[in-house]
């Protein structure tokens, strides 16, 4: 019994099918708890006032935007090395979700920045890095859509994801070199855990877990859709071949 067995499409479908409703439910519940707690049951910040509450959307979505790219990198590597189709399809399914997370992070950042810094957008390193990440997501999705043959598309997008990851990392450091920013330091970090008041920390953790679960739920549903689409295609091909043979 190996973990790789779950990479078989049929096994994957059978296993994830019953799990999806539970994950969706858990994500919805935690999202409701985290956001209500964060938005209505926390005190105003002494400097930032009520606007600070956008952190409960901004930080989890920004975190997921990066994590999803890392997940795509891992699944792309698995596809290139072990040729599991589910892995390639999961990478394909994750990309639009990652793009959505990046856009949410950018929009909520702008909404937060306007009252705080007096501007919707500054060419700050963090903001710029996210804009570049957004471009990487768009390029990746566009390449998937441009190539007809699914295996060729999976191979080429996986190569792009690998190369893109290296360049995204380089861009991040290049951008820090290019401009020192307005953006505050990391909202949460292991070294300076006390930077954020405990009153905000727990609802924020809840929201982060909720966003993580939301992503898992969405990526499972999207991957299942991709698998079904591939099956339909395979069935159509089979039917065509059989007509040809008859």
């Amino acid at each position, binding site marked *: 019994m190996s973990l790789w067995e779950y990479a078989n499409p*049929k096994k994957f479908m059978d296993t994830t099918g019953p799990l999806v409703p539970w994950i969706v439910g858990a994500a919805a519940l935690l999202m409701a708890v985290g956001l209500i707690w964060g938005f209505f049951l926390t005190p105003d910040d002494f400097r930032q006032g009520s606007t600070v509450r956008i952190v409960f959307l901004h930080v989890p979505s920004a975190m997921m935007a990066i994590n999803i790219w890392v997940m795509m990198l891992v699944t792309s590597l698995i596809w290139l090395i072990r040729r599991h189709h589910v892995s390639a399809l999961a990478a394909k399914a994750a990309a639009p979700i990652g793009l959505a997370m990046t856009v949410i992070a950018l929009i909520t950042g702008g909404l937060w920045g306007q009252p705080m810094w007096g501007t919707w957008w500054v060419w700050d390193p963090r903001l710029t890095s996210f804009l570049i990440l957004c471009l990487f997501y768009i390029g990746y999705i566009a390449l998937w859509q441009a190539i007809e043959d699914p295996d060729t598309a999976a191979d080429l997008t996986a190569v792009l994801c690998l190369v893109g990851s290296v360049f995204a990392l380089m861009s991040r450091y290049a951008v820090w070199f290019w401009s020192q920013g307005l953006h505050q330091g990391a909202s949460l970090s292991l070294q300076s855990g006390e930077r954020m008041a405990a009153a905000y920390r727990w609802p924020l953790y809840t929201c982060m877990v909720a966003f993580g679960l939301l992503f898992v739920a969405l990526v499972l549903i999207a991957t299942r859709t991709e698998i079904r689409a591939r099956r339909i295609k395979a069935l159509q091909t089979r039917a065509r071949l059989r007509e040809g043979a008859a």
Partner: protein
Amino acid sequence: MDLSVRDLAVARGGIPVLEGVRFDLPAGGALVLRGPNGCGKTTLLRTLAGLQPPLEGRISAPPEAMAYAGHADGLKPTLTVAENLRFWASVYGTAGREAPAMSAMNLSDLLDRPAQTLSAGQKRRLGLARLLVTGRPLWVLDEPTVSLDAGSVGLFVRIVRAHLEAGGAALMATHIDLGLAEARVLDLTAYRARPRAQAGGFDEAFA
């Protein structure tokens, strides 16, 4: 060099088109592939030439032993006939073979003509002259006689025969009768991939 192919299965666009292909092509032999359009002749030849991986099966000779010529001749329109051929000779490290190749394909009068001014048949002859400069023993040819007139086909058959006599071998997909008496014919219809059994057991490849 001998070529033997065992249980070869090839796919086009992820869909198996031929399976269980087996044949032997000894040095000095020629084999003509037949089969209806779309049956997988080109796919088979590209697989043998190493341009795409086989689904399964064994090919005894490495791609490095083969000289592949496809539908397109790979000519550069702004280069002259001689320059086109000299380029391939230096890629294959066989400088000096261009002159005999050009006279064998009756191109000697066209040396300084840019390839874009050649007729379709002349281009084809230049494309086939490239085979002579590769110096590789196994020729893998996809429709080599397209757009050749009767005289040029005769020319082509002569160079194939000379190649066979020198210990080479040739594998060709063609529809016309070359008049190459020693060539054996292999009909690929018998190897067409059967559509797999009914749905349910989707494997990794969804096929």
